[in-house]
């Protein structure tokens, strides 16, 4: 266990974080295997399977299917927005003051959707994370990151393990892409960004699919 999100909180191994930190520093990206515990991942995958997806285009950058906002997305945010997760990510990446993660579930179909080099630079985005929710191993869908003024890449990662998480740095001068998915199996992932400007509790109260009881 390196970092694992469980039903009742996340568990982390600090020594593993230090090992990942050196790779992250060198490659600007790293994989955290098995982020979501298997039983919980199965529940998430069942919910994703039952969810509605709609076509979405991010300008010229990417096209994909995006899961409609629903209780499954609320569950994923609830699972990942954990102080233990924030502390681990800070230790691996050197980022400071992380207090929330916000993302979407997307699906890319082989031969249909695409992604281009882009930075994700935007206020309150410091670290990106993509958690693989695919049931089966897909082909292609390789993550690459590089300086925007150089064709050579810092890191290349095939994030194909179910429940594995890819972390990557977001900064001026860096850009990344995910290569097209090939073969027959689509890629499904929960992807978004860590930031520190807003805390998760505020976001939780805004979730239309979750209801606070007094």
């Amino acid at each position, binding site marked *: 266990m390196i970092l694992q999100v469980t*039903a*009742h*909180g996340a568990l982390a191994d600090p020594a593993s974080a230090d090992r990942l930190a050196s790779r992250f520093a060198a490659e600007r990206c790293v994989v955290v295997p098995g982020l979501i515990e298997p039983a919980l991942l199965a529940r998430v995958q069942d919910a994703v399977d039952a969810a509605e997806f709609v076509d979405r285009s991010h300008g010229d950058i990417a096209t994909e299917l995006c899961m409609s906002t629903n*209780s499954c997305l*609320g569950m994923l945010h*609830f699972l990942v927005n954990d102080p233990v997760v924030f502390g681990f990510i800070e230790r691996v990446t050197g980022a400071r003051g992380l207090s929330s993660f916000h993302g979407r579930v997307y699906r890319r179909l082989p031969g249909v959707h695409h992604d281009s080099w882009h930075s994700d630079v935007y206020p309150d985005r410091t670290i990106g994370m993509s958690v693989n929710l695919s049931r089966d191993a897909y082909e292609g869908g390789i993550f690459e990151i590089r300086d925007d003024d150089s064709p050579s890449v810092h890191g290349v990662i095939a994030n194909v393990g179910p429940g594995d998480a890819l972390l990557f740095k977001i900064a001026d001068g860096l850009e990344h892409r995910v290569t097209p998915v090939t073969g027959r199996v689509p890629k499904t992932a929960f992807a978004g960004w860590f930031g520190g400007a807003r805390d*998760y*509790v505020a976001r*939780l109260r805004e979730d239309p699919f979750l*209801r606070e009881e007094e």
Partner: protein
Amino acid sequence: MIELKRSDRVLIPDAVISREIEGETVVLNLETGVYFGLDTVGTAIWNALRQSGRLEDVYQTVLQQFDVQPAALENDLLRFVNQLASKGLLAGA
């Protein structure tokens, strides 16, 4: 619904997950979308519930953690677990 007593056992349903955030615990039922925020004492009770489903064990654990009158604790504990049960966040075993 049956009123839980100190001699009863309870369990946390599979559909219920929890997180400690900023010193408090948020408990969420994935099937209903209902979540419930717990204060410090509620968090202590919740953590004890995760260790043992026997309410007697929970009572003894929390009694050792807080300077509280036994009768008051029993009253608060039973009110708390019955409240959680009524929201589907706890079930009788």
